[in-house]
């Protein structure tokens, strides 16, 4: 098989095959890169679209909640305050009528006083529901204590509150978010979870403020994504993102829920 010279035809064939091979491989690589780039860009766009859609849903949830709040306030104002002030005004007109007996005057004045006291109470209550004065004046810890007391007395739950963090008064805006999150969680525990005991504890772990919230209600199926999409949860998510914190929710049926969030 040893030959001292290779026939020119074979040499040419070899050169042809090698160059053709490399050219075709180069073309294949170029086509590969072109399609890969297109695919990657498309995937990136899809990801961005997903993020945008989620943000839009969050925004929608906030707006809907805002409108509901407004409706509720309007109703509260109308039912509790407007109606009472109406009667006060009527009674005041009665006072201007001539020829009133002492007894009648006394009765009407009593009515006016009672009604205005009640109206004052109700307006205080509405203001308190909107933003508790205790929270505003004395900070997050006192606000949560008062919240727990309220729930204990009116909704018959037992609450256990423990706080190891010294809350800075300057962060009152951020603490408002924490307060609202806890309000929402406790409302959910009562309404949906039918819980009878709630544990709330704040701790500072490795420099990060964490809050652990546990209740003994009926819980929900964690893996069912439907439960995560409720209005309240979306608002909680928005608030967590305002706080630049994280939230983790674990729950099993009949084992209550465990919520840990950082802020």
């Amino acid at each position, binding site marked *: 098989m040893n030959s001292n010279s290779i026939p020119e035809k074979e040499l040419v064939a*070899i050169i042809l095959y090698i160059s053709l*091979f490399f050219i075709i491989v180069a073309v294949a690589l170029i086509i590969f890169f072109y*399609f890969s780039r297109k695919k990657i860009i498309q995937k990136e766009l899809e990801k961005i679209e997903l993020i945008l859609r989620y943000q839009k849903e969050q925004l929608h949830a906030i707006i809907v909640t805002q409108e509901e709040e407004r409706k509720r306030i309007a109703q509260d104002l109308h039912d509790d305050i407007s109606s009472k002030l109406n009667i006060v005004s009527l009674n005041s007109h009665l006072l201007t009528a001539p020829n009133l007996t002492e007894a009648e005057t006394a009765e009407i004045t009593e009515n006016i006083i009672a009604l205005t006291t009640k109206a004052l109470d109700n307006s205080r209550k509405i203001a308190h529901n909107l933003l508790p004065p205790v929270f505003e004046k004395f900070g997050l810890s006192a606000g949560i204590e008062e919240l727990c007391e309220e729930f204990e007395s009116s909704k018959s739950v037992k609450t256990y509150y423990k706080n190891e963090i010294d809350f800075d008064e300057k962060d009152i805006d951020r603490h408002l978010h924490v307060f609202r999150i806890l309000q929402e969680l406790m409302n959910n525990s009562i309404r949906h979870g039918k819980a009878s005991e709630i544990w709330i504890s704040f701790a500072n772990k490795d420099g990060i403020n964490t809050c652990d919230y546990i209740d003994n209600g009926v819980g929900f199926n964690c893996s069912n994504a439907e439960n995560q999409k409720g209005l309240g949860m979306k608002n909680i998510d928005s608030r967590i993102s305002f706080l630049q914190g994280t939230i983790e929710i674990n729950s099993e049926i009949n084992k209550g829920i465990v919520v840990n969030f950082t802020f």
Partner: protein
Amino acid sequence: MDDFLIYSGYLILLINLVLYSISFFRKEKANGFFVIYLAFAFLMQMSMELLYHLHYNNLFLVNVFIIGQMILLGLFYNSLIKILSQKIFIKSILSVGILIFCIQFLTNPNEFLKFNLFAITLTSLFCVIFGLLHFYNMLTEKKVYYYVTIAVIFFMLGSTVLYLIGNLTLTLSLEVKYFSWKLNAFLFLVYQLVILYEWKVSFSKKSLEN
């Protein structure tokens, strides 16, 4: 030295065949076509070795090997692909390839007894294209058979060049004459080692768990 390279290549191929068959029978985790490919490769290598020792010409087996390799790898990647248009693409390329070789065989059967440069180039090219297609699909999904595809592309490119210039080495002196073949045996060894590594990464934990 050369024998060591060649025989260790065969050994790793045998090990791969055994390991992948085990994975295949355990829970159907390893791809069937890939196991068939390894078995086919082992069979071919052994028969070529046998014919060599019996001093027969084993060049036609080489052609059988590379064409079978192309078909089996094509079927292997075809089974991994989920998009219909790409499946059709692979199947059509395979059929075109087989058609070309049938035509070549009918018109010039002697080519199959020689060193068939055209067959080598074409089959390796197709294998590289299949590998690239698989890479394209793996861009945004979980990587499966990632290292195997790297090995296939690398080995096909390398060994094809070596085969193509194989005929040029006929005029070299005795010591360096078999240089390109030694390099080829080394590439084959690396090829099998990477397939072994793929097994370790993808299948070993699950196989051992069972």
